[in-house]
């Protein structure tokens, strides 16, 4: 246990040569014997095993809603689906909506329109619940697109308060489904926030945080929409 890097021996060199095969599952008695004696080489193997375990636990990531919108628009334009006249056939004619950036700009404009034209006499503490479900979703998406973290966080807090006030009226199985989704998203938000606290410049954590807030807002909007639609 008192070895240092400079004590790397011929045995350590042989360990390095056999390590790849050992990690591939091959029987390498020398590696097993060596890591019992050499603390440094043992830690290498432990690290690789821990890394492999951590990779297996990586959660799946959620794409933004714009992905399906773009797919749907392209397929509708190509006439891929059995034609159903209505909203989608009108939507698909808007060529610029097929790319994410114009979609984001369009969503911002719609959100701005919704916010400017919405009546102003809503109670201050419940502004999001006063919007229609569609306007609420659009506003949330536009904040996600614009990367407005604080606004999104505020909206999520308000939506959550409204959801908590109404959750008693939801059927138990529906409520459980929403609760599970919210729990998972809260975990993601916590992990991203922790990561940002440790490393404020971590752009990936920032992106994930925004995505998690957007998804939480979507789930809450969906729950409120479900409740309003009953």
């Amino acid at each position: 246990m008192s070895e240092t890097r400079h004590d790397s021996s011929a045995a350590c060199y042989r360990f390095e040569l056999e390590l790849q095969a050992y990690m591939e599952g091959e029987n390498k008695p020398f590696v097993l014997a060596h890591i019992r004696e050499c603390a440094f080489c043992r830690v290498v193997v432990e690290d690789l095993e821990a890394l492999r375990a951590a990779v297996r636990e990586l959660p799946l990531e959620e794409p933004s809603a714009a992905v399906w919108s773009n797919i749907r628009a392209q397929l509708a334009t190509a006439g891929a689906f059995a034609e159903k006249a209505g909203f989608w056939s009108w939507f698909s004619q808007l060529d610029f909506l097929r790319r994410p950036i114009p979609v984001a700009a369009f969503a911002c404009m719609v959100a701005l329109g919704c916010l400017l034209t919405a009546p102003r006499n809503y109670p201050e503490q419940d502004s999001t619940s006063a919007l229609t479900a569609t306007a609420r979703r659009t506003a949330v998406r536009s904040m996600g697109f614009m990367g407005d973290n604080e606004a999104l966080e505020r909206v999520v807090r308000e939506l959550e308060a409204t959801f908590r006030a109404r959750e008693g009226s939801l059927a138990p199985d529906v409520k459980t489904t929403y609760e599970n989704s919210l729990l998972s998203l809260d975990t993601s938000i916590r992990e991203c926030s922790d990561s940002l606290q440790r490393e404020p410049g971590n752009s990936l954590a920032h992106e994930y945080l925004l995505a998690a807030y957007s998804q939480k807002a979507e789930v809450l909007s969906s729950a409120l929409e479900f409740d309003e639609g009953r």
Partner: protein
Amino acid sequence: MSQQKTPAPKAASETQLVARAQRGDEQAFAALFEIHKRRVYSLCLRMTGNTAEAEDLTQEAFLQLFRKISTFRGESAFSTWLHRLAVNVVLMHLRKKGLQQVSLDEVDSCQDEPVKRDYGDNDRRLMGSVDRISLSRAIADLPPGYRTVFVLHDVEGYEHNEIAEIMNCSVGNSKSQLHKARMKLRDWLRQNEGLMTSGEPVISDQAPTER
């Protein structure tokens, strides 16, 4: 692999959904998208390390799926077939970008570094709870060739012979790239102090089991 749960379409089995999608049923296609979008997007994200590219590639993969779904004969699981299609979409994209995957040989010859041992405290080791954000970031930071092999093998569960076929390289090359990718990830995570926790050794008497 843990994943976020959202209400899944219940009405039909996947086989029925595929059959309906093959007939141009929009709802069936939407349901297939809903079922598989996370796995396809996660694959694209981990192979590119970029959310915007990953979304574009997810979109492209599902558009290709729609174009090719009539050729699916059910000889393999639909998810396997779709997954392979998505891998091909990503590899094609990376090749177009000039990140030639089979520059593996080139990477191979110049990066034979010794195992790094001098991280200070030799009792500290990466434990099972490696921070997932940092791990994702470390994977994104890998050179493209290493990243592709690592994601295909360790994340997505492909075998080396499959990777060799997909990437037009030898099985030995795939194994070698994977090992180097793992060592690079270890170095990256080791250099990030916040990720290291101390704990009891976790060595077994058997060689690690491959998936």
